[in-house]
């Protein structure tokens, strides 16, 4: 398996660290109800098809990446930087 890092180009899977669902980027506000925190921390979809998750380019440029991939076909359709995305902290 290879991921094409937006900065480094195509790289072997062993260079990356898998973190989890993209949901981790959408942290609820401090005052959000418990159910929002429950969703954020524990409840995940398990889709047959497109999924988006976070990977870390540990042995490369040390960037967090959002990988869009298909759990049925194993196709990787997009790899984007977490940094600089809309609404991201600077």
């Amino acid at each position, binding site marked *: 398996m290879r991921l094409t890092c937006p*900065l*480094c*180009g195509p*790289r*072997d899977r*062993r*260079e990356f660290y898998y973190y989890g669902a993209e949901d981790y980027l959408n942290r609820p506000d401090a005052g959000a109800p418990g159910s929002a925190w429950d969703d954020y921390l524990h409840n995940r979809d398990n889709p047959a098809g497109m999924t988006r998750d976070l990977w870390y380019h*540990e*042995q*490369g*440029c*040390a*960037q967090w990446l959002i990988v869009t991939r298909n759990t049925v076909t194993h196709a990787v359709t997009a790899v984007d*930087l977490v*940094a600089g995305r809309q609404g991201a902290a*600077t």
Partner: protein
Amino acid sequence: MPELIAKGPFDGVEPLVMAGLTLAPVEDGPIWSIALLPGGAKAAAKALKPLGLAFPGPGGISEKAGLRLVWTGRDQAFLFGDLPAGLEGAAVVTDQSGGWAGVTLTGPGAARALGRLVAVDVRLAAFPVGGVVRTGLNHMSAVILRTGEDAFEIRVFRSMARTCWHELAEVLRHLGARAPLSA
């Protein structure tokens, strides 16, 4: 205050010549990490321009008169040499001197030898002279510069210096053992 003794990562290590390849330690001077602050690119470019340097993009190296700027990450580069003035406010600068250990691997077929430990394509067509990759050298994180068609500079965390040397020396020994068989 006791007098501390400065020791290089490869003190007492002699260059290894085998299979037509040479593995040798590099003695680095000061190394600085230059991490651009958000919106700091313009000010950094202004400070670097009089030196004949430009902040490198991914995989790039900018070099002039003993100063070398090597891309190491998003909006980040390592400067080898003395720190110029004028980067305050444009970038976060941290001293990395002594934190990295370097070796050179040179000779015909250096790319083939390096390819035994590195999962990225280091052949000339994919990794041209004057480029840099951050990748794994076996299990170590490494910064690999291509300084010539048959010349690489490899830097790893200083704590990994001897391991890096061991791994590369092993490659040279294996290639050296094969050479008479395939002659």
